[in-house]
């Protein structure tokens, strides 16, 4: 299944900026195919839909830890581990806003 998601927030800057679009795919991977460094969209019980980079994978507990690239980004130390069942998909295509400064 493929979805189109719009990015808000700065925590993955400068790679992903507010206004960018990403295509995420769930069929494109089986969970074993998730890798550290992949950008994933997941649903968080408190913060809703979020996009973050995978920092580490715990295949035993079927959960991941995430981080942003911005120094002020919240990460798994605040969000807690993310269950793989809450992952909507990983980014397979990134459409950058051509108006972005860089």
């Amino acid at each position, binding site marked *: 299944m493929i979805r189109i998601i719009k990015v808000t927030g700065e925590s993955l800057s400068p790679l992903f900026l507010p206004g960018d679009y990403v295509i995420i795919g769930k069929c494109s991977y089986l969970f074993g195919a998730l890798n550290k460094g992949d950008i994933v969209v997941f649903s968080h019980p408190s913060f809703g*839909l979020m*996009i*973050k980079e995978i920092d580490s994978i715990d295949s035993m507990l079927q959960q991941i830890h995430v981080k942003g690239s911005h120094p002020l980004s919240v990460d798994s130390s605040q969000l807690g581990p993310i269950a793989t069942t809450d992952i909507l998909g990983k980014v397979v295509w990134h459409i950058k806003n051509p108006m972005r400064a860089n």
Partner: protein
Amino acid sequence: MFYKFFQSVDKYLSFPEAKAHCDIPCGIYDPAPAQIAALTVVRMMDLMTALEQGEEKGRLEYHNTLTRYIAVKEEHAEKAKHEIRVIWGDYIKDTHLEKHPDLTMLVHQIMQLGSNCKQTINREHGLAFVDAINQFAEIFWLTKNVKTKKAKAPYAPGLEMFYPDL
């Protein structure tokens, strides 16, 4: 070209938004305001003691100044408690507590010492308040893998404080 296409479709379909969260919660947590507030509490105690030993005692100005010192001491003791509660409630997670099991007791101790500082002008309570908040700051920076250094605050009362060694 692709972007304009997606932007046009977005106007009609409103794609779901995924937050690359940075704003709320902002992730900006720092024990420094609590440390400064605790230092202020000790400073007010010192100023009150000095005032009591001065020659102005009994005059209207004396009462005015003393009242102001008390008000600031009260305000900053509460501020320090508030700042610690925010970090405790919003930032500290189970994983931190597993690594630092004494943290719960330390936060409780800070709350009680803050109240002691309001109730009395006992400098020992003030010093213990600063010390406990320093311990909290050290643990906080450890959770962020930020080294700390001990240094004297460059202003009265010049107590030793834990600062991030950036």
